[in-house]
């Protein structure tokens, strides 16, 4: 049972990671003069979009999302609406945090917001997909020893890795190397993406490695 779950997760992660690579390669074929540095926002939104679509599709197909008690259309719609609001709020939250970290307030606000969207896609969207718009469940997962399934653990790992990646991505900005990727927010969004990919890769491995220690309580 364990191995099946881990294998399923690994393949889901592989699909998501592949979607990131596709999102980098496809515009290079389709869009003229595309480059990750030059037309950074195009790349950023293509990655964010594809990760969002693939995430939603994968988790919908796998049926990871929590069982719903009511199955009416209106309930589903309200759930969808709440998810959208949560996503938007998380974008604003990330934007605020990034500005507090020293990003310019007015100029290049679009770039900052794009970074916030990317971060939200990698973190909040996955939470929404796996846990649903359920604050209590989020609190549980992100408190100490709160994970109740392999998916919760993978969520913890990927979220942490993405945020730490963005954090580390800010380091090269003050260096005087004058490289194209030192321009705001390229290094941070690259850091986020690399962090997210690392998270996707390490989550199955880590869980497999620690499967003896991981004992999930049942609800």
């Amino acid at each position, binding site marked *: 049972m364990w191995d099946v779950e881990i294998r399923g997760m690994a393949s889901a992660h592989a699909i998501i990671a592949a979607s990131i690579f596709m999102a980098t390669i496809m515009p290079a074929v389709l869009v003229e003069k595309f480059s990750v540095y030059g037309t950074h926002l195009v790349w950023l939104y293509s990655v964010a979009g594809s990760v969002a679509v693939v995430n939603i599709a994968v988790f919908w197909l796998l049926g990871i999302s929590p069982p719903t008690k009511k199955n009416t259309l209106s309930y589903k719609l309200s759930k969808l609406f709440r998810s959208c609001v949560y996503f938007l*709020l*998380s974008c*604003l*939250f990330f934007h*605020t*945090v990034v*500005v*507090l*970290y*020293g990003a310019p*307030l007015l100029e290049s606000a679009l770039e900052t917001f794009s970074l916030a969207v990317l971060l939200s896609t990698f*973190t*909040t969207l996955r*939470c929404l997909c796996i846990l649903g718009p359920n*604050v*209590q469940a*989020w*609190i549980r997962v*992100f*408190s*100490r020893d709160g994970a109740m399934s392999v998916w919760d653990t993978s969520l913890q790992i990927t*979220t*942490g890795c993405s*945020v730490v990646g963005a*954090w580390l991505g*800010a380091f090269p*900005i*003050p*260096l*005087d190397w004058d490289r194209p990727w030192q321009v705001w927010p390229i290094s941070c969004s690259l850091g986020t993406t690399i962090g997210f990919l690392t998270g996707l890769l390490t989550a199955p491995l880590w869980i497999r490695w620690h499967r003896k220690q991981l004992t999930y309580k049942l609800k």
Partner: protein
Amino acid sequence: MRLSSSVFASFCLLIELLGIALFLRGFFPVPVKSSLSSKSKLSDLPAEPLAGNSPNSTKVPPPLFKRVVIILIDALREDFIFGPNGKRFMPYTRHIVERGSSHSFIAKARPPTVTMPRIKALTTGSIPGFIDVVMNLNSPAVLEDNVIWQAKNSGKRIIFYGDDTWVRLFPKHFMEYDGTTSFFVSDYTEVDNNVTRHLDSTLKRDDWDVLILHYLGLDHIGHISGPHSSLIGPKLLEMDDVIKKIHASLISREAEGTLPNLMVLCSDHGMSETGSHGGSSEPEISTPLILISPLFQRKVGLEQPAMVEQVDLAPTLALALALPISQNSVGRLIPAVFEEASLREQLRFLHMNGHQLSSLLRDSNPNFHKDGYEQFRMAEKTHGNWMKLYMDGNTSEVLGNMGKKLLKQYLEALQAMSAALSKQLGKYDMYSMIVGMSLILQVLVLLVLAMPEALSRAACVDVPVASAFLSLPFYLLCLLGSSIHVLVCTSAEASCYFCSLPWLLAFTAILFSSALLCSLNVSVGLRRSSKYSFHYWTLSELDILLLTGTVGHTLSLGASSFVEEEHQTWYFLLNTLCLAVFQDVCRKYFRERRRPGDDEEDDPLLPSIAEEDASQATFSPAAELGVSVGSEKWLALSTPILTLACCRLLRSLNQTGVQWAHLPDLSHWLNSGDHKVVLSLLAALSLLLIFLLVQRRCSLVSKIALALGLLGVYSYRAAVGNVLFPWQHSGRSISKGTGEARFVYIFILGILFTGVKDLLRSQVMSSAVEGRRLKSRGLWEVYSGVVLLVALLFRAHNLPTLACCLLIQTLMAQFIWKKLHYDAAQTTIMHYWFGQAFFYFQGNSNNIATVDISVGFVGLESYVEAPAVFLTAFSTYAGPLLWACHLVCYLSSERDRAALSLGHGSYCFALLRSVPAVFYVVLVTALRYHLFIWSVFSPKLLYEAMHTLVTAAVCLFFTFMDQDRT
């Protein structure tokens, strides 16, 4: 020997200070100085060499020029004239360069490219060492031999208009002067008009020989808006007009039969692409040097200007005016200037320059024979032979050719000697550096090894001194050290400071060092078998952040960009710290009911709710009195967010660093004249907030004194003209505000006195509870005295920094550190981080140029060294000091474990300072041939040393506070 943690910490820091001082002495090259203390005299000049009979004439060749006008345009970059824009901006000058009788050069300035050392280089011909610059931030008079002094001594009448640095450097040298201060950088028209307005009348007069003009406007424009701003063009045109006017006047007054006049157009330093200067980038060190005189041949087109050194102007001017070359000059004359003189005179000039350089070389370098000296002696001999032939009346072609060859020989010798002298400035005294370094490394290892003991419940450290003194390795090490010392010092490879110390002192140091090494050895052995172990130290996320932050910051010092932009590191770490604290708070208050809120996954609604509560907290500093549990929760939650918001605001108050320093910031906006009302309101509000936050724990007397003192601060700022006084609208002339400042000083001393009195009384108090209460009040009063002094010294636009600092301290102490039960070590590290961040928030950077020297004059009529140095250092390190003082107050107010926390706190403080300082010293030694060593790493080294000094003082304060435990 058993020592308490705080005593141990301050002891370690003091030794570290000694080590760093020794290192600094070895690291900063001593300026090349002639052994003679007097100034060169005409009678000292060497005779013209003549082989055979005794030298004939000691006569100096006659001067080449009658009058000299020196036009120094501050921050004039070489490409402003020679570049593609030169034709547009400076048409007349460009015309002279291309077609007129002139010589143009690019003169290389040495870093630090700051006005004062550059003026010294131009006039003395020596290269002021880096340490010179730091020691002379206030530019007192030049005591060295220099051209200006020589000119005055030989009866030349000198007139000076322009930057008053000259007036301070050369007091009583000028027949007539008008200095303009470069204090108001935002003014770039008035400073130059003040110079130009004298021109017309002065040029008509005949009673002067040397006219020096120093224009500041261009430099100010550079500082405001950079080298590509639209203001540059008109300013250069204005300068061009000035040059045209002077040139026309000089030509019109040129009379037949008298000597021609000389006009020198030069600059002290260039301007970087952002408009600042001080570093060693190409545009900063390339300055134009144009000599214009009818004596020179007319040019026939634009040639690529030759490269010379800035110091070459001093000997050239001296020789051209028939003055002795100043003693410490390392420059060599510019041959082009003397082209028109006869061959005999040319050789004579070269000989005099060579003689001066060779005697300087002989004085300053023990193995002077190598570089150029012998070459010069050879040339001198040939010169003698040549002279003999010449005196015999030989006028053949052979003589001419021989003279040409001799000329070349002289020039080569001059170049070699000049290069050798300049190179000497980059020589390190490795032995002193290594001794200093090994001392501080030992101390660091001792500190780190003592960690488990120092942070234990006993807070005592056992330093095994006795056993070390009795052990055999100690004597062996002593022997080894002494023999190395004797070996190094007698080998006389180079001059060494540590060797020049008295032998007794040096041997004491060796003795001490080997004792330290032995005790280290012993304590390592003890640790291995002791019961202390690190196992039971479980690290929370916050601990991991604090540790990685400290280590990461230390490592980041290895990159020059991270040194330049160190403030970014601290802001970044501080933000992360606040978020981590926020997470802790959320964990505490939402453990069951709500989310624990990881810092990345937080309810976005939270900040907005929290902010409202924060405003409530701001206006009720007495929140400690009676807050319900619910509101306390919200206050605690809002504290980190408020801190974050404050930090973001302060960050945009003062832009520092290098890369983004030119961006507009709030302080420029506030100081720009139109916004004086806003600045006044902001200052008044900040002072009010400061009063509200500080008064709550003071005695009544101190409260009143504090209120009056803060009022005095405002009236001082009003008197100086920074802010508006509400009921006095017009007609107040700007004074120095000495009276107001002294008024505040009285209150500061009063408050400090009350505090110290309370502290002393608490020592003799019988009841422990009462004594502790009194002690904590006394400490707080000392703290408020410090706050008042900082309020007086900070510029008006920086007062919000102080207010924010106090606000954050109050809130954090009230709702975070106490409530979340952070231990002394964690609190200390947080205080240290905050202190570092505030050091940069107040506008400091790792560049010497940002030190605000004007603080040294607050309340003083004239420059008095001791108080000025103290005040400058105090206001520069105000941020770290305030946080350290607060740490003492906070830790000693902890009821049950005050003594323990104080010991732990001071130990952590010492360790936190030692780790980066020691690492940096080692790093600088490794990078001593780095390109940026003088522009980036050395200023930072001085900052590190100064910071260690400040920390040592704080640690001593800690130790005194920690004395009364049982």
